[in-house]
């Protein structure tokens, strides 16, 4: 009996320990970012583009990377949505549960999900070289949209599969076509779509490898889709490899900015999901 109690105690302590470790890692990351990034973070940092000698510790900011990252994220999310909504609707409304095609498409989501982002980058780079294109904002958007497509489509597919059979029948009996039913499905799964977007947006803004060769890097804000664009992950990467301590600190500031953006997006999309939850019929 005492052995059992001891066993219970040991496992309880192990579980508490593991939970604390998770929390601790998160706190440590936040601490490291704040400790090194916060002093380097200034108004100048987020409102100006790099000046001359910025990478040697002189004046300037990271506005180019912030704007570039936001543009690529927004573009990639829209492109990926435009691709995944039709695919998911086709899988769930037009194909049977036992369909072979549906099985193959879902399998390809899983395979694509496992492909590392550098491979997407290399693939995109190859295609761009073949087409004779330079690294550009558009190139980055397309490659990042490919990178986040499987995440988005899978998350959306899971909620779309929960679309109630009764609602499907109710819509069809009104004389709706499958295409007209899409509107009903989208409204029902709107909170799920918001969550799917959030999952992929976080990935889109944080990935360095996919944009390294496809979006390039530049000190100015791109003014046309054909120009290269800087991104925050690459700003972190380049500055961190500098021997100058001030520049390294700026890398942490960039990391802090990136983290804050992701946090804000996450809060926004939660609010959004909640707002659209109200129409959902459970």
């Amino acid at each position, binding site marked *: 009996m005492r052995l059992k109690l001891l066993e219970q105690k040991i496992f309880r302590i192990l579980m508490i320990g593991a939970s604390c470790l998770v929390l601790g890692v998160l706190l440590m990351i936040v601490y490291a970012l704040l400790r090194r990034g916060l002093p380097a973070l200034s108004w100048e940092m987020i409102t100006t583009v790099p000046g001359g000698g910025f990478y040697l510790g002189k004046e300037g900011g990271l506005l180019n990377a912030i704007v570039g990252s936001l543009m690529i994220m927004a573009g990639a999310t829209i492109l990926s949505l435009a691709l995944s909504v039709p695919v998911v609707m086709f899988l769930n409304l037009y194909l049977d549960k036992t369909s072979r095609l549906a099985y193959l498409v879902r399998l390809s989501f899983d395979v694509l999900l496992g492909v590392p982002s550098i491979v997407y980058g290399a693939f995109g780079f190859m295609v761009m070289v073949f087409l004779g294109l330079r690294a550009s904002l558009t190139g980055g958007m397309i490659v990042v949209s490919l990178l986040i497509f499987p995440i988005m489509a899978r998350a959306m597919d899971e909620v779309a599969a929960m679309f109630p059979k*009764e*609602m499907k029948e109710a819509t069809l009996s009104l004389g709706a*076509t499958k295409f007209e039913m899409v509107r*009903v499905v989208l409204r029902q799964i709107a909170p799920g779509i918001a969550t799917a977007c959030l999952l992929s947006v976080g990935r889109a803004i944080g990935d360095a490898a996919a944009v390294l060769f496809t979006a390039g890097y530049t000190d100015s804000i791109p003014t046309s889709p054909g120009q290269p664009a800087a991104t925050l992950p690459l700003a972190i990467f380049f500055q961190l490899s500098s021997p100058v301590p001030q520049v390294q600190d700026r890398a942490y500031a960039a990391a802090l900015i990136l983290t804050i953006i992701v946090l804000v997006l996450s809060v926004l999309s939660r609010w959004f999901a909640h707002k659209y939850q109200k*129409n*959902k*019929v459970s």
Partner: protein
Amino acid sequence: MIATSLSSVLLREEVSAPLELLHAPNMDAATLKVRNLNVHIGEQSILRDVHVHIPSHKITCIIGPSGCGKSTLLKTFNRLLETQPGARITGELLLNGENIYREGVEVIDVRKRMGLLSQRPCPLPMSVYENIAFGCRLHGTRGRRKVMRKVVHYLQATGLWDEVRDRLHTPASRLSIGQQQRLCLARGLAVEPEIILADEATSALDPISSRIIEDLFLRLRQQYTIIMVTHTLSQAVRIADHVIFMYLGRVVEEGPASEVLHHPKHKLTQEYLSGSFS
């Protein structure tokens, strides 16, 4: 918001117009004849050699023990069953003499001519107003004023208007279950069908809400042909004009309610009605 203000305008003038103005009672409203209908799902035979005749302007109740194929029969009427994987349907189903399973018949048209009320109310994930407007727009009603007129009309027809007039733009899921079912009925009617199909439409409702739906059916039969599956014999006794008794995928007995419910000819019907099995 615009729709709300419009509704108050409409309320004063046109909407008080009687039901007939929007949907003229069709004196020879739909009849439905089923000939030699067989349904298989996968290898399993669900309906066998079904022959029935459903009269117009009457409430036809389909009764029978669980699993006898009542709901399946109902779903063959508006061709909803064929959306189920593995379903094979043979035979003829004549809607006003025209076989709806004939090749070339547009399934959308068939479904539009029959409104379905399911067991559990299933409002669409939209506002009360949009729930009804959705169907109207599908079939070509354009313009806010026209749509609003229909919405108000059918909410009145189902006695829901006074309860929801201030909440037209709240999500339909916030209504009570009984109200939701009446909303679903209004939504179905707004498509202007000829037949109302009800699949145990009151089984999820409280007694008062069920009674409201029953009363609505009794009034609506002047304009529509109503077919309802019911599990409650007392309900069939209360409202049925015509009764179909099914057992194990076959129609055992069919006829006017007074005959089938009170003087059943078949032994199985007698046993079912006396409660020997259910």
